[in-house]
């Protein structure tokens, strides 16, 4: 499956592939996009946010 996923995600793929689960049918491209969005969502929850300037730094820069 994964080679076909990579192929569908490539911009030069001219053919469309579809996935079927019973009544559910989705294009492989849309499926890859949704999976990528879920991955980004999870990463946004777990990846630590870089620290900004502290209050002391701000006070120093204001002087």
């Amino acid at each position, binding site marked *: 499956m994964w080679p076909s996923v990579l192929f569908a995600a490539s911009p030069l793929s001219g053919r469309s592939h579809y996935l079927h689960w019973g009544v559910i049918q989705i294009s492989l491209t849309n499926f890859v*996009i949704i999976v990528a*969005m879920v991955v*980004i*969502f999870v*990463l*946004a*929850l777990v*990846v630590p*946010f870089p*620290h*900004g300037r*502290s*209050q002391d730094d701000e006070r120093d820069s204001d002087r």
Partner: protein
Amino acid sequence: MNAIPTAEGAPSRSWTVRLRRRIQRTVPEGQWLPDRQPTYVRSWIYVFGVATLAALVCVLASGIILTIKGSAWWHVSSVGHFVNSLHLWSVELFFAFMVIHLWGKFFMAAWRGRRALTWITGAVAFVGSIGTAFTGYLTQSNFDSQWISTQAKDGLNSVGIGAFFNVLNPAQMLLWHIVLLPLIVGFLVVAHLILVRRHGVVPPIDALPPEAEAEPVADEAALRQPHEMLPHKMPQPQEIEKPGAVR
């Protein structure tokens, strides 16, 4: 006849004074463009709202250029192709960021703390954006737009709106796409932003028990601590209206 007073708080007949006070009551001065946020805002999940807004700016800018130059330009010119693609991919990112923003706010139950209208305006703006994108696909003036419109007409007719929303009428779809729906979505986005600034970003669920939400913040001094030390509790706008208040 009342004279126009100079003191703040005194009644006035001047519409400019009354409008200024209304604006100040809606979003106090320090909350428009705050330079401090509660410590829980230091998370990537809070970035997707403003990322959505940035993508929307790109959508509007590229859309304005496409409007000025016209369909012949975006079909035959290389620069037109580029701007057309910029418009498309800005929309793709706009929706991707908006959906991730929606997921984050849904699981935060972001309608807590008198933020129901913030949630509603965001949700309706999302639905309006879908309509705007749909009419955009119908406005491409190519075989793709013809295919989409002929496929969509049966569905729209089946729910009874095909009589006044005719997807086979390119001129009507163009005006919906570049005038009517952008006005509606633009109004909703502005209202959403005003409400976000008014009520502040929603705190994490575990940081604020529901019974504490209605309690006023008594200790203003605590709110003036550096943002690393802020309690996980957002004050309501009527509780703190002084300029520069930490939100």
